[in-house]
């Protein structure tokens, strides 16, 4: 099924001052693939994700999108890159000054120059897809965390991205709301969306991912099929991490 490399990462490095967060990261995301990135806290997973759409600029190595070196991108090319690479954040980051519908309409209207009606129609169909069409006219503050995150996913989808980046999308949620968000994400994966998901939800990773990457101390220590990763991890650190999580 996966045929062409959408994102290619080559010897990626990121330093914050003297603190080396990412070291010699290599990896390829094929179109249609779902990659789950797992690993202990502070291992650089989120930073890695944020380097892909250049919210953080790498201090070494290259990130290629559709074969093009993102380092050479102009400001407007960068905007286009981000438009095609949606992102879902741990803390949702909905715009509190706008209604749910306006949150979904803003970028399509401003960036893609859609008409108000077009954008509203699209927004409503996306809200329906995440099961929240009746919340179109409320402000985000009146929604639960799970609902907010589903709106955030719909907002990212409104731009028709080619890949969706998820930065621990369920970590800030109450446990009873995790399921609804994962269900939406699973549906997306099944529809063929390319996804890179940083997560602690091992069940989701095992069920949905095409490949699981294990990160620790700024390195990707193992890339494997989910079954192999969770049943027979090769790397010692990965073994240790997985046994601690699954063992409970």
């Amino acid at each position, binding site marked *: 099924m996966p045929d062409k490399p959408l994102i290619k990462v080559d010897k990626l490095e990121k330093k914050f001052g003297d603190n080396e967060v990412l070291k010699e990261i290599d990896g390829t995301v094929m179109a249609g693939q779902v990659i789950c990135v797992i690993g202990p806290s502070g291992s650089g997973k989120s930073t890695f994700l944020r380097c892909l759409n250049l919210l953080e600029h790498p201090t070494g190595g290259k990130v290629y999108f559709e074969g093009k070196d993102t380092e050479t991108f102009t400001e407007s090319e960068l905007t*286009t890159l981000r438009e095609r690479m949606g992102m879902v954040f741990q803390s949702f*980051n909905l715009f509190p000054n*706008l209604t749910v519908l306006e949150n979904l309409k*803003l970028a399509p209207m401003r960036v893609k120059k859609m008409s108000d009606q077009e954008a509203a129609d699209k927004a409503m169909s996306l809200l329906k897809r995440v099961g929240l069409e009746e919340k179109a006219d409320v402000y985000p503050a009146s929604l639960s965390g799970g609902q907010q995150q589903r709106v955030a996913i719909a907002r990212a989808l409104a731009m028709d991205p080619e890949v969706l*980046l998820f930065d621990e999308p369920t970590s800030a949620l109450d446990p009873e709301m995790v399921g609804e968000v994962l269900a939406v994400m699973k549906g997306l994966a099944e529809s063929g969306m390319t996804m890179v998901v940083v997560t602690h939800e091992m069940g989701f990773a095992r069920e949905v991912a095409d490949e699981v990457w294990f990160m620790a101390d700024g390195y990707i220590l193992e890339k494997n099929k989910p079954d192999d990763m969770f049943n027979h991890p090769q790397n010692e650190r990965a073994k240790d991490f997985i046994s601690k999580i699954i063992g409970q």
Partner: protein
Amino acid sequence: MKVQGKKVILAILTFCLSLFVLFSIQPTHQTAYAADQSLQRIKQKGTIVMATSPDYPPYEFEVQKNGKSQIVGMDVDIMKKVAKDLGVKLVIKSMSFDSVLVAVETGKADVAMSGINPTPSRRQSVDFSEIYYNGGQSFLINKTDVAKYKNQSALAHKKIGAQTGTLQYNLAKSKIPGATVKGMDKNTDLVLALKTHKVDALGIETPSAEAYIKNDPDLAMFKSSYHLNKNETGSAMALKKGSGTLVAAINKSIDQIKQQHLANQYLADAGKYMKVNTHNTSMWHYRSYFLKGVEYTLIISAISVIFGVLLGTILALMRFSKSKILHAIAVAYIEFVRGTPLMVQVLFVYFGVGIIINLPALLSGIIAVSLNSGAYVAEIIRGGINSVDKGQTEASASLGLTKGDSMRYVILPQALKNIWPALGNEFVSLIKESSIVSIIGVTDLIYQLNIVRADTYRGVMPVFVAMIIYFIITFILTRVLNYYEGRMKHAR
């Protein structure tokens, strides 16, 4: 900030230096050019502009005539005759006394006439006509002290009040042994100080003293026993340096006035107007003055708030700009404006910039207050933008929104909500601080307050009325702002 420090300091210095260069070159150039064409220029123009501070009866003050307020008094009558003799129309520009001499120096007016004594230090910056009136010097005292202070020698080692920067002030200081001289800007304030025994006597020109005792039964006066040089103690008109031909023409009129003893007749006429003014001194009777003041205070405040917010937003965005030049300009501007008093800025825009472009007083006031407010609003908005969660910027970026769109639709609306109370404070203080424009003659509430005080000889009541009016305005504004704050909360 630290990296930018040097650049910012450089930008501030450059800014100051360019101002300095601009204003040190321009005036000399103009004076030289205007020399001795002064009379011809007035005749070509067909008007003569007189700067005066109409809070000094009987010299100049305001009266209500057919429902319109008008500046009258001895000085005005004399100037009318001068204008008639020159064959031109008289235009009167009112402003605070501090500003009248600057007005002729900077060409805002052709002649300053406000009971001005031609002191040697003043002669250094302006030309004077002949003395047109010499009323002599007197002292005002409380009636209860009549037995105590019979003459000038009784004032030794006492506290004496006088208008700052006037002849009376200098005389009391140098000629009354051991006296403590207390200076204030306005005679109305000084009279109040006298009546509340903060000073024992008040050095004042005889015609003014006479006006006061006529209108206030608690006051008494006696004439001074200074030995004075007549050329320095009377009142004269001030003109821009190098106005020789115009001064000569004016002196001809003054000679006629002296020969025909017209000054006394003018004084008598002024007395009649003063009676009209003091006939009914209730504040209600003077309501039109206060209303006009409110109107101007509101005009200045409303326009300045709008432009202040616009300018403040632009400056705040410049501070966030990647361009180091824009950043430095914004920082320099904000630091400079916040580091100088609004009063100086008002004078600068009216008189300083006025050398290049002749701005009317109201417009100058609005510009100065807007420019000032912009600097403060910029800092408030900057704080507001910083207070918006970083995740909001990242979310907008991840959707492909440009920085401008992100600012406009996401960051600024949230910042505005956060800074609303601080912005409200700025609006309230702007209304109050805009009162400073009265010094260039904008007829705002404070200006009208001083007129009413001078006209009615009532020191406290007009102040009280103005205080209440300011409170009502700011209170209503605060309510309106709170209402909108509540609505924004609701929206979340």
